[in-house]
């Protein structure tokens, strides 16, 4: 009887309890991690991009999701001179910056804002250049320093980018997430108050949503930007509710506590795809999970040993067990959808006998214990590095190679990597712009450090020469040819064993529409609509 009583009370309470799915002006998005900052110029992790690029900011140009052409954003049109060494951009007029309780703009967006946004990265003497220690990160100014010589204001609504030399990647770089435009007036305002560091954490932009507040437990709130030049979004309250556990995220999606969730666990994809109330969106990314061989350390100095181990790995099983359907197995570093992808790349076959034979022929010491270094936590390119390592370990064991898995937390991992004391490393690379150079350079260039991506410590004059010359090559056909050649070398030399190209998954309830996800720049809520759930 008492239980009955308690049950009635529970029912009564749940009657008064309104589920979030009934609030059509509020959208709750459940990402996996908290953003590192609110400025995609300085933080390149996917959580920051999701939280900023499309929501808070605009760029000069963007890429049309369907035609893949460059289309106007804050620049209405642009011109380039004949030898492609300078670009002139004509800016949109009457664009409002966000008005928040920490900043009230008094002027529209103009050329000063463009120059400020890029000079922070380019000019070493800029008052904001080293604010928040952003220069510690290699990626902060890297894309532009070698590219842009100067930015000139022609009038309030015209700016001219002068390049160091002819370069075709400028538009791609401007359309990347780090091409966002900040408010120069806000920056001056902060400087006069003596708090320049706030620019990256209390953001002001021109995007469809403005920042409201951030709670340490992982909740970010945005409000719609009423004067947004592209039309006010229908969602008034945009809320990011960070839920690190993917089982919880899915449970919250089902209960309506989340409208949209990111990165479902690979093992949930099957149950999700048969659930009629959940819509699953997947897009291919250029992010690739890798197993890198330390090519300066014995025995991986030898090309044949690297090749042999590549034949020993049962890639299909790894992809099935770790990624389920969240990634596609791959033989190449470059994704198939890239224009530079070489369709005639040599395929990788799982042939342990051949691997064993090659190891024996090349005098491999079977008493040697190989270290497999892995990060302790999962990443965008590998949902479970440790599990991957365990599978690789089992494969190696089959051909008589003993190995040891070393899982380390982030900081210790970096120290270990920097010391160079490892045989192999389970990692991956996330790619920020569409150009193949952004994939190959961090992995293969002699200038790239281990932490920047070159965990194989690969350095060969031939590859370096190909990388450098292709970047400046104006002839498109020649560029493709060069990259084909580069891929052939990589296939031969095997500094990296590519495991899989990762797909990005987002799941949302049926009452949500208009969601757009970009593999490179993040999720976009501008056109999202929510109707009351049945």
């Amino acid at each position, binding site marked *: 009887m*008492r*239980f009955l009583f*308690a049950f009635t009370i*529970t029912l009564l*309470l*749940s009657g*008064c*309890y*309104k*589920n*979030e799915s009934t*609030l059509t002006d*509020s959208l*709750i998005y459940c990402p996996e991690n908290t953003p590192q900052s609110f400025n995609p110029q300085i933080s390149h992790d996917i959580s920051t991009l999701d939280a900023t690029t499309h929501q808070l900011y605009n760029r000069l140009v963007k890429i049309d999701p369907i035609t893949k052409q460059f289309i106007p954003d804050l620049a209405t049109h642009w011109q380039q001179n004949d030898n492609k060494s300078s670009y002139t951009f004509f800016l949109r007029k009457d664009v409002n910056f966000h008005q928040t309780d920490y900043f009230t703009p008094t002027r529209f967006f103009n050329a000063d804002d463009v120059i400020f946004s890029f000079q922070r990265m380019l000019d070493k003497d800029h008052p904001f250049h080293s604010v928040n220690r952003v220069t510690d990160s290699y990626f902060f100014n890297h894309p532009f320093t070698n590219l842009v010589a100067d930015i000139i204001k022609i009038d309030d609504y015209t700016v001219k980018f002068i390049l160091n030399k002819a370069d075709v990647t400028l538009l791609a770089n401007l359309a990347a997430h780090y091409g966002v435009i900040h408010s120069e007036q806000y920056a001056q305002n902060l400087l006069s108050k003596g708090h320049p560091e706030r620019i990256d954490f209390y953001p002001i932009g021109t995007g469809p949503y403005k920042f409201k*507040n951030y709670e*340490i*437990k992982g*909740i970010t*709130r945005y409000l719609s930007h009423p004067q947004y030049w592209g039309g006010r979004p229908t969602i008034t*309250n945009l*809320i990011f*509710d960070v*839920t690190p*556990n993917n089982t*919880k995220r899915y*449970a*919250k999606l*089902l*209960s*309506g*506590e989340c409208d949209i969730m990111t990165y479902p666990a690979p093992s949930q994809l099957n149950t999700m795809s048969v659930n009629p109330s959940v819509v699953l969106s997947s897009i291919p990314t250029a992010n690739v999970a890798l197993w890198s061989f330390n090519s300066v350390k014995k025995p991986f100095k030898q090309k044949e040993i690297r090749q042999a181990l590549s034949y020993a790995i049962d890639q299909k099983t790894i992809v099935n067990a770790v990624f389920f359907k969240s990634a596609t197995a791959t033989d190449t570093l470059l994704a198939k959808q890239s224009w530079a992808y070489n369709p005639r790349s040599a395929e990788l076959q799982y042939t342990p006998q051949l691997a064993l034979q090659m190891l024996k022929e090349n005098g491999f010491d079977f008493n040697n214990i190989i270290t497999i270094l892995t990060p302790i936590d999962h990443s965008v390119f590998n949902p479970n590095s440790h599990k991957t390592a365990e599978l690789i370990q089992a494969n190696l064991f089959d051909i008589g190679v003993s190995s040891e898995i070393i899982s380390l937390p982030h900081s210790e991992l970096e120290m270990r990597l920097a010391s160079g004391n490892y045989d192999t490393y389970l990692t991956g690379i996330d790619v920020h712009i569409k150009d193949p150079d952004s994939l190959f350079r961090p992995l293969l260039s002699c200038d790239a450090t281990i932490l920047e991506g070159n965990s194989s410590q690969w350095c060969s004059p031939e590859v370096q020469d190909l990388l450098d010359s292709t970047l400046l090559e104006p002839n498109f056909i020649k560029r493709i040819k060069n990259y084909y050649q580069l891929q052939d070398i990589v296939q031969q030399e095997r500094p990296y064993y590519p495991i899989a190209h990762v797909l990005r998954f987002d799941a949302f309830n049926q009452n949500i529409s208009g969601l757009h996800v970009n593999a490179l720049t993040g999720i976009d809520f501008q056109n999202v609509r929510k109707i009351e759930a049945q």
Partner: protein
Amino acid sequence: MLNYLFRRLNLLFITAFILSVIAFILTYWSSKNTLADADAGYIIQYVKYMSAILQGEWGLSSIDQQPMLIKGLTAFASTLELCFIAFITANIIAIPLGIFAGLNRNSLLDYLIMTIALIGLALPVFWLAVITTMLPRLLGIPLPIDGGISPVFEIPVVSGFILLDTLLAADTYQLDAFFNRLAHLILPSSVLSLFLITEIIRLTRHSITMVMKSNYVKAAYAKGLSRKEIVFRHVLKNALPPIIHQLRLQLSTIISFAMVIEIVFSLQGSGVWLLSSIKEGDYLALPTAILIISGFILLSSIFIDILLMIISPIKRKSLYVD
């Protein structure tokens, strides 16, 4: 009477002193590289530490530079809220069952009740919590399973007790936020109360049995009082104080369990706060938690002791906590 009070207060101070020493050692350990005057003696450092603690300067969190004291208190208030709700529910359900079992010893219902109680004791609380998070989906009840309150509501922290704070913020959200919070508490508090229920049933049953065996109950029977009269007039009054006393001893277990449940349900509170602080390397949270949680348990123990002393004078002789 005064003597007893004096002894209890004495105990309070000595225990508090030992706790503060433990907290000091932990603080010293967690900040071993950054302590300013490392060459000063331990005693001087302890005195400095204590004066800072007494002035409310408990240090800053290394995660977000917020004062530790505020963070710890807010988190603990949330935990207490959970415990309180679970405690109320558990009492409503368990005391009648326990009395019933105690009065009808060895009947079929008694066995049934005691079996349920034993099962409740043997279920690991975190596992039960994990299973419970699956319930709304299996049964089709729309109950939230994650977090303390929907992020739609922005509740300013006034008292730290979110239920109270939602009532204070009723201007903006009417009672929606309050009910939302309550709905978020239903499942976690059910799990916690299951443990409490088993504990209270056992204690009540034992206590009732003891009283029923006593001479004054026999005398009351001899007087010709009906069973109902005896139970309500004599038994309950004498059976309840030992239960309170025993429950007081369970306080730290209850809080431990509450913290684990919070972690499973991602309910903001001491458990989540401690775990995330440890994971981020903010070890100053440990001494803060010791001082706040143990301080609370200490004070409430003394309070309950004094309360019990007023009710039953026999307890006045005991020297230590038992």
